[in-house]
């Protein structure tokens, strides 16, 4: 589980060697894009909504402090307790304290990337509180001791046989690989947990400032049960998740399920605006929202890169990414993966630990094209590569080579000399071998240098024409 994006190169090699995972990931990603295209293509004003949502989110980011204060006071008016967490440690402590205060020895959790980001599960377990993931995919990866390999479909890399085996091992049930039976096993196993947990932890897809509530979107109904059966509900939410008001919500709900799972609507859209009424006999008695910064305010400090905070974690960019389709989510070494992960990793973890992440992309732009928020991920990856270089985290030889090359390319004579050299060198190679270039020595050949080059050939052609 101790993954770090520092080892991306190693993870990529490992991922490429794992054929079953690659096939599973590629198939799942392709199916997802196809169903997304079908739904998005059926909405004639898709582009207009996209731009609307982008403008809403831009406005929120540009006035984030005001929206946060509005959200806080309206939540409080609704009886929701609002907590602020500077970083992961403080978020973990806040949630841990709420759990201790309500005497929870076990908590049910619905899918939340933000809690993954702060490593909440490990912390709770260390403190004697058992965290139980209730989303089927999350539950599977938790039983395996892994982290999710996709923002939306955490167990996308696993086959039904893998899942059957882990259920057999960990839940003591008879082996089955039938998806319906596997789902039923999880239902029965987790129903007991729902009924006995004193506390439920969820994330939040949106925080709605004017009405002081949060919105959790899901399909399995596990989030519904998480936020309504236990006595205490805690939602952990990044500060960037705000939207202005309820009127803005339908626009986001047009884009999110379509992009995430190819649905017009998710099965359940839960809007939570406070604890259950007194005497109603249901609903949590306490609702807490933990507003997490953990680097977001710093990311906001870059006028360009702040665009990455618009992300609604729909996972569409992963599905469309030709790199992700080859290597899956675990190769990125962190809880955010795929194109947006490549951009988030160095921003959250720093240029040193995250130095390889922005390079793990061919910059093809499929992510930006599919992103419901039109986040220009390639542009951000380019800037982040530059930040890695500035932080002196790019390789020593690369740095020297690039500086020399750039020096030459600004001087035609020098440039002509250095580019003349490989052509000559290549002539020394036996047969029609190409220049030995890294990355091109296996199942693929690089092009051959032309002995003359365009400029010479052009001059010769012109002479002939005269």
């Amino acid at each position, binding site marked *: 589980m101790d993954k770090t994006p520092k080892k991306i190169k190693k993870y990529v090699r490992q991922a490429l060697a794992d054929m079953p995972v690659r096939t599973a990931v590629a198939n*799942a990603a392709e199916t997802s894009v196809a169903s997304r295209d079908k739904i998005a293509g059926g909405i004639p004003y898709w582009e207009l909504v996209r731009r*609307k949502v982008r403008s809403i989110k*831009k406005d929120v980011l540009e006035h984030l402090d005001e929206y946060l204060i509005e959200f806080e006071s309206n939540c409080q008016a609704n009886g929701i307790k609002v907590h602020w*967490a500077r970083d992961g440690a403080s978020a973990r402590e806040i949630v841990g304290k709420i759990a201790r205060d309500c005497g929870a020895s076990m908590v049910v959790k619905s899918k939340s990337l933000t809690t993954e980001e702060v490593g909440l599960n490990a912390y709770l377990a260390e403190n004697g509180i058992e965290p139980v993931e209730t989303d089927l995919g999350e539950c599977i990866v938790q039983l395996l001791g892994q982290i999710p390999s996709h923002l939306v479909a955490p167990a996308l890399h696993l086959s039904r046989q893998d899942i059957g085996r882990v259920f057999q091992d960990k839940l003591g049930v008879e082996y089955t690989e039938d998806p319906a039976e596997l789902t039923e096993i999880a239902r029965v196993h987790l129903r007991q947990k729902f009924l006995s947990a004193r506390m439920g932890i969820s994330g939040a897809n949106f925080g709605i400032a004017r009405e*002081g509530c949060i919105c959790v979107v899901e399909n399995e109904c596990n989030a519904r049960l998480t936020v309504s059966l236990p006595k205490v509900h805690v939602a952990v939410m990044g500060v960037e998740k705000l939207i202005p008001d309820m009127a803005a919500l339908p626009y986001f709900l047009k884009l999110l399920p379509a992009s995430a799972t190819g649905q017009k609507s*998710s099965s*359940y859209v839960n809007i939570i605006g406070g604890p259950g*009424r007194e005497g109603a*006999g249901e609903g949590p008695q306490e609702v807490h929202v933990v507003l997490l910064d953990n680097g977001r305010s710093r990311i906001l400090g870059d006028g360009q890169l702040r665009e990455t905070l618009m992300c609604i974690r729909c996972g569409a960019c992963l599905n469309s990414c030709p790199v992700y389709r080859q290597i899956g989510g675990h190769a990125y070494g962190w809880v955010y993966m795929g194109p947006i992960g490549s951009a988030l990793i160095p921003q959250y973890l720093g240029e040193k630990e995250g130095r390889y992440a922005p390079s793990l992309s061919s910059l093809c732009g499929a992510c930006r094209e599919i992103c419901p928020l039109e986040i220009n991920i390639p542009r951000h990856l380019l800037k982040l590569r530059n930040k890695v270089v500035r932080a002196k985290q790019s390789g020593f030889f690369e740095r020297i080579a690039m500086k020399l090359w750039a020096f030459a390319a600004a001087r035609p004579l020098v440039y002509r000399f250095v580019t003349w050299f490989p052509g000559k060198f290549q002539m020394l190679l036996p047969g029609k071998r190409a220049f030995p270039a890294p990355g091109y020595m296996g199942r693929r050949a690089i092009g051959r240098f032309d002995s003359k080059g365009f400029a010479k050939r052009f001059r010769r052609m012109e002479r002939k024409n005269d």
Partner: protein
Amino acid sequence: MTDSDRNDILADIRSSLEIASDIPFAVGADEQPLEGALAAELFDDPQTMRTRFAEELAAVSADFDVLDDQTAAAKWAGEVLAVDGFNTLVVAEEGICLDIAKAIQSDRPDLEIIVAGDLDGAERQARLAQPSAALVEVDYALADIGSLVVLRDNTASMLPHFLPESVMVIVRPEQLLANQFELIKVLPQDAGGNMVFITGPSRTADVEKVLILGAHGPRRVSVGMLESAK
């Protein structure tokens, strides 16, 4: 600790926001065409809206029937119950649903009726978590995506909507709206934030992308459009 975190975070955000955004975008440029496109989404007449609602329900694997009156509703609900063979029917509180339940019971005395609102919290959860069917009302229905909208504070219990395996939903014609945009316009100001949009049965595709109905919530959702409450 939290308090100082709060002020630190806000201060950091403010200082970060002194930098101007470099997020290429033409603000407000598309307001008008979008409003127009959304207006065009509205339905010409109630019948087309209802047809669309039925289609969308089918698309999310929910059933749809039109029920002339309560007698028809009782017959319909009795049949849905029989499909899965449940002997327990949960309703939230007194009202149409309880009336219909009693009408079914008069035909099949073995049917046990649970009124969720009458049970205390712990018992309510425990009873409803057992295999059962529910008959519930909702507050609105949305034609364009086949959603049902429940406002928490309008019902004695929302658990019957989520815990039982088969959920039958009574919708009244006047509750049907075109879409979420229309819903936001008519939502009572004090509805607060507590509501749920339900679209079809609970589902998952976490095992090899195979769609399975019935994850942690209902596996069957049947909608009956009750023409007349008589």
